[in-house]
C-alpha cells in the first residue's frame, strides 16, 4: 500500500493503480471508518480530564441522506451521526468531511447538552476528509460559543509522542484517552485512493461515545482529527497536524483552495532489469511515471510518460518512492504534493529521460471531482438524470458503480467499468458518460424492458457529451415525432414516440416522481 500513493488519485482509475501496487501489500489496517458503536475495546487509558479540553469542543450531530442510485429523483432513508468537533476559530468548528457527506441537517450542541444550534458548512475537503462548520444564524444563536474558546493549532508531532483523544459521554462527562503515536504513514481512510499523512495512535478508546471524528490534542493544542478507530488492533488513525493546520488556516480565512494534484501515476524501480533498461544510475533512486493525467499539472509542465522522477521539491525520491522527512523519517513522496502544498504552488521536479536529467517546474492544480469523466464522489451535488417516457438516463459516477454491490469491481457492467478505468478512451467525445440506467415499464417502452447500462452516443443525431446535451437533444422533436437514441458499442437505434412519452411522463409525475430531470444549471449549490 505504501508504494501506491498516487498524487494523481483524482482521475487515475483503480485498475491502473493496482498495477503498480505490490501484490504482497496488506489492506490498510483499520481503514474502515468505524461508527459510533464500533469501539468495543476495554477502556484502560482513561485519565481524569483536564478542565481545558471540554471548553474547546462541541458536539456535532448530522443527518445524512444519500440519493437513491436507481431512482435518482429521490433520496434514501436518512441516517444520523454524532461526533465531537474542535473549535478552531471564532464560531468555527472542525470535523471530518465524512460527518457532513450527504448531509441534510447539521446541528451543533454544547458538550453539556444545554445549548443547541443549527449549523452550516463553511468549507469542506472530501479528499482530505476535513470540514469546517459554523452557525446557521450567528445572530440568533449569538450566545452559543460563550465560555467556549478556540483550540490553538499545534506543531507536528513525531513518533513516540503522546496524544490525548477527547470524547464526551452522553451524560456530558468528558473522557480523555491518551495514546502514543506508533507510526506515521500516508493512508486513505475515507475516500479510496486519497492518501494523506496520518498518525497511527495506539489507544484503547471507550465505546460509550462516538469513536471517530474526534479531536486529538498534544500539550493542550490541536494535533489532529481522529478519522477512524480499529477496536481489534486498538489503533486510532489521526489525520496529521500539518494536514489539519493547512486546511484550518486556509478555510478560516475563507476561500479554501483545496488539495492539489500533480497528475501522475507511478510505479517503483526496484527491479534491477527495469533499471538497466531505463538507464538509471545505480546511485540514484527514482520512480517510473506510468501515466499522466490529461491536462494535469505534470503534463502541462512537460513531464512525459516513461520519465523517471528523481526528486520532488529538492527531496531525493528512492526506488520505492520514499524520501527522508525531517520529523517522520521515511515518507512516501506524494506527501510533498498532497500534504505540503496547495493549488497554485510551484514544485520543482527532476526527471530522468533517456539517461539525461531534466529540471521541470510544475504548477500544482486542483482537480475537482466534478471535472472528471466519472466523478469519484458526488457529495454535495444531486445526481443529474432524465426520465423520458420511462427510459431512465443517468450520468455515470463512481458511487453509482458501487451500487452494484460489494463486488462491484467484477459485477458492474464492463462498458461502465471501462469508462472508469480507461477514461482517456472517452474523454475526447464526452464530458460525462450518459447511460440508460434502467427502463420503467410504460406504454412507450414496450419491448425495451431488457435494455440497461447502455452508454448513449447520440440522440436525434446529436452527440451527447453530458446530461444537459441529452435534455436539449430530446427538447427538439424530429418532424415525424419519433426520437432516436443511439447507443455506443451496440449497433442499433431505439425510438421513442414524443406524444406517447409525454403522456407517460405526465403519469409518472402523478405517480410520485418529483421531477423528470435534473441538469447542472438547476443544481442547488452548497
Amino acid at each position: 500500500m505504501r508504494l501506491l500513493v498516487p498524487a494523481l488519485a483524482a482521475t487515475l482509475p483503480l485498475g491502473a493503480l493496482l498495477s503498480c501496487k505490490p501484490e504482497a501489500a496488506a489492506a490498510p489496517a483499520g481503514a474502515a471508518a468505524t461508527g459510533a458503536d464500533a469501539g468495543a475495546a476495554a477502556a484502560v487509558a482513561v485519565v481524569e480530564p483536564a478542565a481545558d479540553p471540554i471548553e474547546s469542543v462541541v458536539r456535532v450531530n448530522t443527518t445524512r441522506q444519500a440519493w437513491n442510485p436507481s431512482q435518482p429523483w429521490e433520496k434514501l432513508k436518512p441516517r444520523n451521526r454524532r461526533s465531537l468537533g474542535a473549535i478552531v476559530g471564532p464560531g468555527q468548528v472542525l470535523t471530518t468531511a465524512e460527518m457532513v457527506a450527504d448531509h441534510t441537517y447539521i446541528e451543533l450542541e454544547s458538550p453539556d447538552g444545554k445549548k443547541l444550534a443549527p449549523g452550516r458548512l463553511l468549507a469542506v475537503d472530501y479528499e482530505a476528509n476535513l470540514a469546517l462548520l459554523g452557525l446557521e444564524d450567528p445572530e440568533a444563536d449569538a450566545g452559543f460559543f460563550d465560555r467556549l474558546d478556540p483550540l490553538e493549532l499545534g506543531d507536528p508531532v513525531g513518533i513516540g509522542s503522546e496524544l490525548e483523544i477527547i470524547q464526551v459521554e452522553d451524560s456530558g462527562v468528558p473522557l480523555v484517552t491518551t495514546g502514543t503515536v506508533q507510526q506515521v504513514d500516508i493512508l486513505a481512510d475515507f475516500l479510496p485512493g486519497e492518501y494523506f499523512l496520518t498518525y497511527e495512535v495506539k489507544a484503547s478508546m471507550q465505546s460509550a461515545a462516538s469513536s471517530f471524528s474526534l479531536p486529538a490534542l498534544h500539550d493542550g493544542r490541536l494535533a489532529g482529527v481522529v478519522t477512524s478507530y480499529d477496536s481489534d488492533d486498538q489503533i486510532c488513525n489521526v489525520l496529521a497536524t500539518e494536514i489539519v493546520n493547512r486546511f484550518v488556516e486556509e478555510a478560516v480565512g475563507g476561500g479554501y483552495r483545496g488539495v492539489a494534484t500533480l497528475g501522475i501515476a507511478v510505479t517503483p524501480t526496484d527491479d534491477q532489469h527495469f533499471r538497466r533498461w531505463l538507464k538509471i544510475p545505480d546511485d540514484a533512486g527514482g520512480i517510473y511515471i506510468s501515466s499522466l493525467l490529461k491536462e494535469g499539472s505534470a503534463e502541462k509542465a512537460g513531464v512525459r510518460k516513461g520519465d523517471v522522477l528523481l526528486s520532488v521539491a529538492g527531496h531525493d525520491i528512492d526506488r520505492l518512492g520514499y524520501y527522508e522527512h525531517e520529523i517522520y523519517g521515511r515518507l512516501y513522496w506524494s506527501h510533498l504534493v498532497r500534504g505540503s502544498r496547495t493549488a497554485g504552488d510551484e514544485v520543482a521536479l527532476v526527471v530522468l529521460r533517456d539517461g539525461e536529467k531534466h529540471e521541470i517546474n510544475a504548477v500544482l492544480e486542483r482537480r475537482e471531482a466534478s471535472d472528471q469523466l466519472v466523478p469519484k464522489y458526488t457529495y454535495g451535488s444531486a445526481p443529474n438524470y432524465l426520465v423520458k417516457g420511462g427510459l431512465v438516463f443517468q450520468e455515470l459516477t463512481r458511487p453509482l458503480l458501487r451500487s452494484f454491490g460489494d463486488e462491484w469491481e467484477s459485477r458492474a457492467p464492463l462498458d461502465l467499468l471501462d469508462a472508469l478505468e480507461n477514461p482517456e478512451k472517452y474523454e475526447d467525445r464526452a464530458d460525462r458518460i450518459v447511460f440508460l440506467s434502467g427502463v420503467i415499464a410504460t406504454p412507450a417502452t414496450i419491448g425495451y424492458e431488457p435494455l440497461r447500462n447502455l452508454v448513449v452516443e447520440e440522440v436525434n443525431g446529436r452527440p451527447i457529451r453530458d446530461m444537459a446535451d441529452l435534455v436539449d437533444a430530446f427538447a427538439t422533436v424530429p418532424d415525424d415525432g419519433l426520437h432516436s437514441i443511439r447507443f455506443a458499442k451496440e449497433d442499433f437505434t431505439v425510438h421513442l414516440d414524443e406524444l406517447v412519452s409525454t403522456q407517460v411522463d405526465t403519469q409518472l409525475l402523478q405517480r410520485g416522481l418529483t421531477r423528470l430531470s435534473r441538469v447542472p444549471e438547476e443544481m442547488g449549490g452548497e
Partner: protein
Amino acid sequence: MPRIVLFLLASLLPLAAQTAPIGAPSDVYRSVVRIEAAVQVPDYSTPWNSGRFGGGIGSGFLIGENRFLTNAHVVSNARRLLITIHGSSKKYPAKVEFIAHDCDLALLSVEDFSDFEDFPTFEFDGVPELESQVRVIGYPVGGERLSVTRGVVSRIDYSTYSHSRADQHLVVQIDAAINPGNSGGPVLQDNKVIGVAFQGLRSADDTGYIIPIPVVQRFLKDIEDGRYDHYADLSISTFPLYNPAMREALQLPDNDRGVLVTGVVPEGTCDGVLEPGDILFGIDGNPVDSAGQIVIDGARIDLNEIVERKFKGDTVELRYLSDGTWHDREVTLKTLPQNQMYAIQYEKQPRYIVFAGLVFQPLDTNLFATAKFEDINVRRLYQDYLPEGLFTEREDIVILTRIESDPINSALRGFRGLAVDKINGTEVRSLAHAHELLHPAEMPEFFVIECFGAGRPLILPGDEIAEANERVQRTYSIDQLSNLEE
C-alpha cells in the same frame, strides 16, 4: 440461471447397499449398457502436469451394428472405457468413435462385438407429446443393476447444454427421478427411444432433461461423412421489434413481422450479407415475427431452429429489408471455430509457454474458470473476442497467468493475470507467435513485454534467460517448457 447437474455418476459416490429385486427385464433392456470411464482431466493451473485421474459411471444403448449411443460427458477425457451388460459381469473394452461436445452426444464401439450380435437395437421415435408417459432406463446411483423409472413429459423448450456451457438446443423436461449414472441412457415410449437422459436441476427434485430425437438424429447425420462438424450458426444478434415507435420509425406496418439485426459476427455465416440495422423477415420461407420466432409444426420457436436442423455447408434462404430495399439471399452455413472461446474444452492438452518462470496461456473458458481473472482488460478481450471480431487480429488472447518464483523475476509484481499486448514491440497474435517472439534467432539485450493495463513494461535480460529457464524447469519439475499443440 438454475444450476444444472450432469447425471454422470462419479465413482467416488458411495453406492447404496440395498438393492430391490426387479422383475425379468424385457428383451430390449439387454441393449442398455453400463459404461465405466477412467478419465484424466487436464489441470489448467499447472498445464505441464498430467492432470487429475478419476472416473465415473454412465449409461448407453445399442442403436445399430456396434454403435452405442451415450452422452459426451460420460466419456469426455476418457483414457479407458469398459462396457458391461445387464446380468453379466464381463467387461468389454470400448472406444469413442465420434463425440460432439456441443450437443453432449457420443458414439462408442466395442473391440469385440460378437457377444452383442443377437441383441435388439433401439429404434427412434419423434418428440413426445406433453403429458405423455416415458420410461428412463439406465444404471443410476443406488445399485449396480439396471434401473427403470417412469415420468411424464412436462416441458419442451430451448435450453442450455451444460456440458459445453455455451450451447443451447431443444430439450425435453420430464418429471422422472433420473439420477447420477442415468446419463446416456435411453428414454422410451412404447419401446422406442424418444430421447437420451442427460442433465437435471440441482435446485429442483424430480426434474430431468433429455436430449430429444431431432438433436440425436442431427448428430448421427453429421457423422455420416466420417467426422463431426459442430453446429453451424447464423452468427448474428437481434433485437425484437414490438415497440410501436420502433416500427413506425422503421416504416413497418403494425403486423408483428420482422426482427432487427443488431450485430453480425465478422467471418460468420451472415458477414457481408446482413448488416446491423437490417430487418429479417423470413428464413427458408418461414415468416419471422417481431420477437425473432417462427412457427414449425404448429409451435412457435426461435428462428435458429431452422439452422439447428441443418449442417455446415447447407444453405439458408434469408428474406430481409436493408435501407428500404427487399433482399432474398441464400447464405451458406458456417461453423465458427472461434465460438469455442466460450465453450468448455475437452480432450485437449492445455497449451502454455514457461519463459523465465513466466507462464503464458491462451485465454479460453477452461482457463477463465480455473484462474478467475479480474482484470477488466482481460474480461473485455474475452467478451469482445467473437462479437467484435478480435480473433481476426489475435487468434489467441495470451495471458500471463503465473510467475513461478525465480531470481530473474523476483521484482515483478502486479503482472499476474494480465493480457499480453506486445513482445519486443510486436503485437502478439497467438501463443505460437508469442513463442516465436520469445525465441528470436538473435538474443536481444532485453525482452520487453507489454501487458494491457500494466503500469510499466516487463523487462527481462536476454543473457540470463537460458540459465533461468533451466533453473525453473528443474525447480518446478516442468518436463516441457512449452506445449503449443492442443
